[in-house]
């Protein structure tokens, strides 16, 4: 089965503005969903989406139909951009430690007041990056296990392990939601 994005990409490569708009309309919601959940920051997610499309415009003239699925490639590009930002955050946090001691995560402090969606997002952000990535790709982006593993550069077994550990941690963090 051919890649559903191939035809649009070839028109983008020819400089067709309608095709560029159509590609943005088709892919932007998925990019924002991916980057928003990986970064937990709307403004940064928008920046990632813009940077990812700059790479799309450069890649379109060289895209080889059949070599890879465009959606898979785009997920990998966006994730690389997200990881760049997560790395910079860690470096900044390391270079500029907080003046007050970090009181650490505490599910009962503050989080309880947030609505369910915000609590889920906070719980997602508390996961190790690779566990969060696995859950975002499989649950929210609805990639199949083989495609998600390819995007992450891991085996399907490793993906399954990341998903299982991530979901167990989320269940523990959100255990009171069922009872509420």
């Amino acid at each position: 089965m051919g890649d559903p994005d191939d035809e649009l990409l070839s028109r983008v490569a020819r400089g067709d503005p309608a095709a560029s708009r159509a590609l943005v309309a088709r892919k932007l919601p998925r990019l924002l969903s991916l980057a928003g959940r990986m970064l937990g920051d709307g403004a940064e997610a928008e920046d990632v989406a813009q940077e990812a499309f700059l790479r799309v415009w450069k890649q379109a003239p060289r895209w080889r139909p059949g070599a890879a699925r465009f959606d898979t490639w785009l997920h990998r590009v966006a994730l690389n951009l997200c990881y760049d930002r997560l790395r910079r955050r860690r470096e900044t946090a390391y270079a500029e430690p907080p003046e007050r001691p970090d009181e650490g995560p505490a599910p009962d402090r503050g989080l309880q007041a947030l609505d369910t969606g915000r609590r889920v997002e906070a719980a997602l952000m508390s996961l190790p990056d690779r566990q969060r990535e696995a859950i975002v790709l499989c649950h929210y982006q609805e990639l199949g296990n083989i495609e998600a593993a390819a995007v992450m550069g891991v085996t399907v077994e490793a993906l399954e392990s990341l998903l299982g550990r991530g979901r167990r941690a989320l269940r523990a963090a959100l255990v009171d939601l069922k009872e509420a």
Partner: protein
Amino acid sequence: MTPKRFETLAEAFGGDVARWPDADREAAATVMAAEPAWAQRVLALAGDLDAALAASTPLRGAGDLADRIAATAPAARPRWAGWLLPAGMGAGLAAACAAGVMLGAQLGAAPTAVDDPDALVAAADDDFSLYLDEEAG
């Protein structure tokens, strides 16, 4: 499929078997038929977390974000560029080389032709080939 494997898959992929890996669904159906009550409990537990995850709504972005991004797409080159650039590139590069050789002979150091549009196009192509190695390799 063992019951343990069924639980592992529910833990990883959630309570909706339709979202499990293709290769495992048929065997999962067999387990569900053999132990329906137990299987439903396992799936319901996983489904609770699925329902919680669904409470996180996707980011929508600023209203004009799509327009701003689409505006960054390169426009089509004018028709004349299709034949002018390839024809001009060879001549331009030859001229740039000749000028460089002459200047180098005169001054001992060849300057860079930064204002030569053909040279700029060639430089952009070089930059792009580096990008492809990084991103698409």
